[in-house]
């Protein structure tokens, strides 16, 4: 009841200004709406920061901590690097309208495979060792989602629940490994970690225009390109688009929908596993440790959703989220919790993006004043006159 009243009030207010929302038969320009919504979200967030902190230094800090300095850029890119890969992992599943909420767990399992191979073959030289570590990570990530994938395809068990639950198993597994024979004797407090992986198993950093960043970012971009090509120009990609559009149409076209569904989820888990090992070998934490992921897997899902499941856009959106997190940590010195700073902002901007997507279903139309024509000979009645202005009228 209240909702309807406020809707009417809103319509009335807009009507007074001469504008009106009109429903579209199908959404238009969803990407543009989403981007515009993110920009609006960032602006509102900045205003909120200013109001909350009231320190003139805040903007300056955010600017210098993000796009205003080489150090800021390198921060953003380092934060974006794992998000590109976790975002891609989630986006692969979204192509079939599946939700891989277990990216976090597969990320850890990928890193685990990497660390296990590195410790077993410590004497091996860099390139072949890294290749083995990445292959093992992809397999291990895929293995971690295999049971949810098969259960979903053959028993229709909701993959959101199963993949999510396995994240907690992965975290506990990590605790077990990091307190075992590979334990780092120096680690203490709440952070659990193994000792560092050997030097030759680390990815070199990259420097472009005096901005340093992890080479994992380049790997992420390469994976994005490969995925884009595969989904665009192979029969596999065609089948995924068909089944993603309608599972019934998939079976009708003679596609083995169950097998395809399993394959796509395994691919998603594999990419998540690669994300884990890439972050471990290329990032700041060179060990299998709880500090390896700062909710990277979950943020990857946000990245994929913001990107509308498109692989190239995932790369861009990972940068956006990276910038937001950088901004959040830049504020930490001003007594703003970094969780509030980064996750609060991410959530807010996701909300704005959702609103933007909803608005893509409408368009603004200039109101013509004589919209509701009055019945002839009825002009004299005051009720009818009020109705003409777009106001409500009792009968």
């Amino acid at each position: 009841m209240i909702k309807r009243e406020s809707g009417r009030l809103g319509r009335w207010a807009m009507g007074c200004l001469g504008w009106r929302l009109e429903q579209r038969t199908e959404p238009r320009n969803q990407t543009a709406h989403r981007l515009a919504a993110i920009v609006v979200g960032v602006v509102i967030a900045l205003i909120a920061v200013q109001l909350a902190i009231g320190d003139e230094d805040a903007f300056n800090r955010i600017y210098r901590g993000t796009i205003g300095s080489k150090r800021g850029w390198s921060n953003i890119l380092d934060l974006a690097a794992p998000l590109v890969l976790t975002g891609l992992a989630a986006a692969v599943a979204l192509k079939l309208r599946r939700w891989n909420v277990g990216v976090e767990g597969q990320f850890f399992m990928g890193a685990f495979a990497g660390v296990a191979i590195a410790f077993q073959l410590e004497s091996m030289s860099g390139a072949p060792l890294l290749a083995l570590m990445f292959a093992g990570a992809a397999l291990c990530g895929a293995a971690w989602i295999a049971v949810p994938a098969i259960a979903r395809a053959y028993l229709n068990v909701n993959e959101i629940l199963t993949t999510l639950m396995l994240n907690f198993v992965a975290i506990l597994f990590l605790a077990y490994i990091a307190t075992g024979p590979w334990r780092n004797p120096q680690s203490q407090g709440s952070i659990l970690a193994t000792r560092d992986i050997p030097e030759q198993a680390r990815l070199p950093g990259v420097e472009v225009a005096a901005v340093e960043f992890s080479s994992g970012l380049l790997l992420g971009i390469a994976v994005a390109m490969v995925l884009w090509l595969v989904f665009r120009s192979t029969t596999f990609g065609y089948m995924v688009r068909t089944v993603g559009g309608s599972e019934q149409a998939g079976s009708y076209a003679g596609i083995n929908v169950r097998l395809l569904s399993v394959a796509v989820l395994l691919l998603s888990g594999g990419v998540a596993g690669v994300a884990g090992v890439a972050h471990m070998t290329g990032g700041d934490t060179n060990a299998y440790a709880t500090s390896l992921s700062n909710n990277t897997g979950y943020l990857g899902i946000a990245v994929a959703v913001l990107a509308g499941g498109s692989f190239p856009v995932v790369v861009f959106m990972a940068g956006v989220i990276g910038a937001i997190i950088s901004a959040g940590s830049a504020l930490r010195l001003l007594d703003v919790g970094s969780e509030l700073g980064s996750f609060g902002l991410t959530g807010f901007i996701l909300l704005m993006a959702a609103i933007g997507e909803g608005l893509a279903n409408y368009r603004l139309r200039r109101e013509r004043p004589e919209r509701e024509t009055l019945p002839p000979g009825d002009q004299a009645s005051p009720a009818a006159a009020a109705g003409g202005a777009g106001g409500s009228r009792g009968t």
Partner: protein
Amino acid sequence: MTSTDSGNAPLAVQMRGIVKRFDDLVAVNDVDFDLRAGEVHALLGENGAGKTTLMNVLSGLLRPDRGHILLNGEPTRIRSPRDALRRGIGMVHQHYRLVHGFTVAENIHLGWDASPTVLTPARIEERTRELSDRFHLDVDPAARIWQLSVGEQQRVAILRTLARGARILILDEPTAVLAPGETDKLFGMIRQLSSESGRTIVFISHKLEEALEISDRVTVLRGGRHMGTHAAEDCTPRMLSQEMVGRSIEFTRQREPVELGENALVAEALSTTDDRGLPALREVDVTVRAGEIVGVAGVAGNGQRELSETLTGLRALTAGRIQVGGQDLSRAHARDFLAAGVGHIPEDRYASGLVLTESIEHNAILRAFQHPPVRRGPLLIQGAARRFARMLAKTVGLSISDVSAPVRSLSGGNAQRLLTGRELNASARVLVVVHPTRGLDIGAIEEVQQVLLRARATGVAILLISEDLNEVMRLSDRILVLYRGAIVGEFTDPEQFNLEEIGLLMGGALAAAS
């Protein structure tokens, strides 16, 4: 025709200059529409003519962009379906919006202001029984919706609307899913409601004969515009069809005799279960020869879907044998059927036959993407796909400039044209066709039927499953009647197809015939 004396009855509803736009589509364009109190008024038009949109405006679901409504002479703004019901206007939509796991009584009382505060099954069933008696609508209050036939579900939906005080009852395509017998029952109900309890009824339809049979007055819409309103006794089907489509349509049938070939499709003692695991087909025998159209008549839900799915590899058999061109396909999958030359025009073209989120090109190659030239190794050759799609579009006469346009931009007729052409292209031998013209306008119906007849002439074996009895009789060389998953009758002589007899068999009234 009903004999209500509504000629001089006061106008219950006057809609004036109604305009409703969706984006750039003007669904209803400056339409005037009157309802006299107590009349049965048919609203005729092709699909997309704006019939449902106009009535959605009257029932409060949509707001008009322009125009106004007078109820009993008073200018009125109808804000919502609930508001419309308060003013005595209720609509029964094509989809009844009933909760399938609930009982009839629960559905009647769901979201109803007048429901008692304490709901016990006994109490609401008693109230439902009273309503059922009052409106002479026979329902079983304790039955669950999923147990009911479509006709019975419709009755529940009508009763629900009447119970909420509707004096003006709008029925949207009420006969679309009914068997001949059920339609007669519905018409009896409509007459009673109009003559005994003075209800005003709007009957939305695109079927000329039905509209003329049941209504006092007829209004025709075309392309969102009002074409005319007539007293039913002054109308002929020909004149109305001309108003509906803007030209006159031939009602004759032109079927040339075709030399029958080999047995292309042989199915013996087919048995299978439905999605709930209950028996859906019981030892069904079907044989279709090359150059023959075999029609399967039956009321929806008697195994048609399962029959089409088993014959295309989408549903496994529990017993029986399927042979296509001598090849055994009893245990085969959908792609094996396709490889053997079986095409399929499915029941719901927008859910299974087409991928609505994708382009025309994507949909055009749905049957061809596994083979050269569209496929090379693991690659999909974009150029070849595009050429194939253009070729197909040209063959079926789609006048589109861009095959990368989304398939949802096609009209219903064009979508079905694309699908039919694709299936005929993919399958030279057998075509399993389900409800090929459902929801299409008269022009497109005619065209799709012609395409099927031409395919027959080139020696394709066609199994035609349709709930439109006229269509089955018009196209088929032989008719089988499916009732509760079994073939209960066969008619072999096209000259002696008997509508009445087939209708009775469809309703399960006779055991066997001719």
